[in-house]
């Protein structure tokens, strides 16, 4: 067999697999979109229709005004910005310290960090709530945000990344007269851009889709986040599926934008670190 034909056959197989996988990912989204455009009763027909008979574009404005979604988006946005900035900054500082500085107990502290990765978030829910409550932070932005500013995973990923950078670049800067802070800001951090983008993207997605913590720590309607808002279509309005899906589709847009914007960095970050 000629090698180019073997190559083509392999490419065809590869693309087929990729297309199948992509469809598996895409179908729920398309279904969600389709449901968002159905009318309230069409959803419950049997067998369920694939496409709405008469697309209800009004579902979008109706769903988004039924509850104060503008406010929810603002809250989610604040949470997301704080988490992205907080987690990349603390991740970079912590990761750099673990990768580059020798200090007493470094191994033990790092092991404790790794241990914390094993603790399921749900176990921490109540202690976190009690802590924030004791500090008077329930139902405030500060309360919502403050326990989310550090990501153990982010520290870990950035540590691995800094370890993979050659120390000599930093040594050259040291000889060139740079202080340790300058080396961190001007040399190490710019070189870590792909890893920082990866951490930032994951923080953003984490923030945007977080549900349980905002549900617990916020109480008044105007402190709710988008996810919590979407969920409240259940029960309140006897499960209005099209409204819920319309809100969910809208909520997806920032995630898509964030992913597309950082895709280049982000795939490189995965290649570079080989984790997650």
């Amino acid at each position: 067999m000629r090698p180019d034909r073997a190559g083509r056959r392999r490419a065809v197989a590869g693309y087929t697999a990729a297309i199948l996988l992509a469809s598996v990912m895409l179908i729920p989204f398309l279904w969600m979109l389709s449901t968002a455009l159905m009318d309230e009763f069409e959803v419950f027909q049997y067998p369920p229709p694939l496409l709405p008979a008469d697309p209800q574009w009004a579902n979008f404005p109706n769903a988004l005004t039924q509850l104060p979604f503008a406010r929810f988006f603002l809250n989610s946005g604040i949470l997301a910005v704080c988490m992205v900035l907080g987690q990349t900054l603390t991740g970079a500082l912590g990761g750099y310290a673990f990768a580059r500085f020798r200090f007493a107990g470094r191994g033990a502290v790092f092991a404790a960090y790794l241990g914390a990765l094993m603790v399921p978030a749900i176990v921490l829910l109540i202690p976190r709530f009690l802590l924030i409550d004791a500090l008077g932070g329930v139902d405030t932005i500060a309360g919502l945000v403050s326990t989310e500013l550090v990501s153990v995973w982010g520290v870990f990923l950035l540590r691995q990344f800094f370890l993979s950078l050659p120390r000599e670049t930093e040594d050259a800067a040291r000889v060139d007269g740079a202080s340790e802070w300058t080396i961190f800001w001007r040399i190490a951090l710019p070189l870590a851009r792909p890893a920082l983008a990866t951490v930032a993207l994951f923080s953003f997605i984490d923030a945007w889709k977080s549900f349980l913590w905002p549900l617990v720590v916020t109480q008044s309607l105007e402190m709710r986040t988008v996810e919590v808002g979407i969920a409240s279509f259940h029960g309140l309005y006897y499960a209005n599926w099209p409204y819920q899906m319309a809100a969910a589709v809208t909520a997806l847009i920032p995630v898509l934008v964030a992913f597309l914007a950082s895709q280049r960095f982000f795939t490189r970050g995965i290649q570079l670190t080989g984790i997650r």
Partner: protein
Amino acid sequence: MASVRLERIAKRFDAGGTPAVDGVSLEIADGEFTVIVGPSGCGKTTVLRMIAGLEGPTAGRIFIDGTDVTDLPPRERDIAMVFQNYALYPHLSVRENIGFGLRMRRVDPVDIARRVDRIAESLEIGVLLDRRPAQLSGGQRQRVALARAIVREPAVFLFDEPLSNLDAQVRAQTRGELVRLHRRLGTTMIYVTHDQVEAMTMAQRVAVMHKGRVEQFAPPLDVYRAPSTLFVASFLGSPTINRFAGRVLPDGTSQRFDGGVRLRVEAPLAEVATLAVRPEHLNLVAPTEGSAGEVTLVEPLGPETILHVRLTGGEQATLRLGAGTTPAVGDTVGVSVRATEALVYDARGRLMGRGVA
């Protein structure tokens, strides 16, 4: 401009382990070009990094220009260093790479631009100033690294095998350029290499290191002619120096060494001794006049020929012969030692005497 003095500096990376550097003392004069040479892992880089302040010695003091800098960070030492892999800043342009050190020292930006341009011009990398390091060839990167060091006009230059990643031709050319640069600037330079050609051709004085210690510190030809230890004798010179085991007895006349080598030596009595003779100090003679042996390999190099001979006792001898007729493989030949050039080492490998005519 500055002298550099190392006072018994040592470095142990892990407590209890073998030291990477074990009591090195060197006095390097202002403006001197010193080469530190030695096999891989002998501690050359570690010594250089301690002079730079990138590594703290576990013992000993370091003086630059008479000032004790042992506890000073690199930026307060007025040194510049060229790293083996150049360690350029990948995210900065060549211009920013070269100017980085000046910026750190808060030099006026106009002044920085002028100095960067001038250095780039003199190293012929002017057209590369707006490129990133990734867009440069190995030789160009090396020049940028050099420019980054020179532009700061430091008191001492440190080089860690700066030529080892270059191909042979560029390396030979850059060797010459570095020597000219040294002559022009007159700045103290400490240059680490494991390449004996670089050590011999560039240095005013060579420090030969072995297992964390300096075995000899002297001008290159002195080191070559009178290596103070057997290690130094074997490390420098290609082909490797010939060694014949034996002892030094009191009879004062002729001493016998392995391979049937006989000569008079001037050395203290020793039960165990080694005679070391450079390949160019072995003469080809009639089999009856010297140690007899059989030619096992002939390597004609053009201007000279390397002859490998197996002596009757099984010892190998290597001879460097001038151009002319040479024996063929399988021939029986005689080998004699040019006595005054023969070196005698004691059981611990220290030079203790020489042959006499």
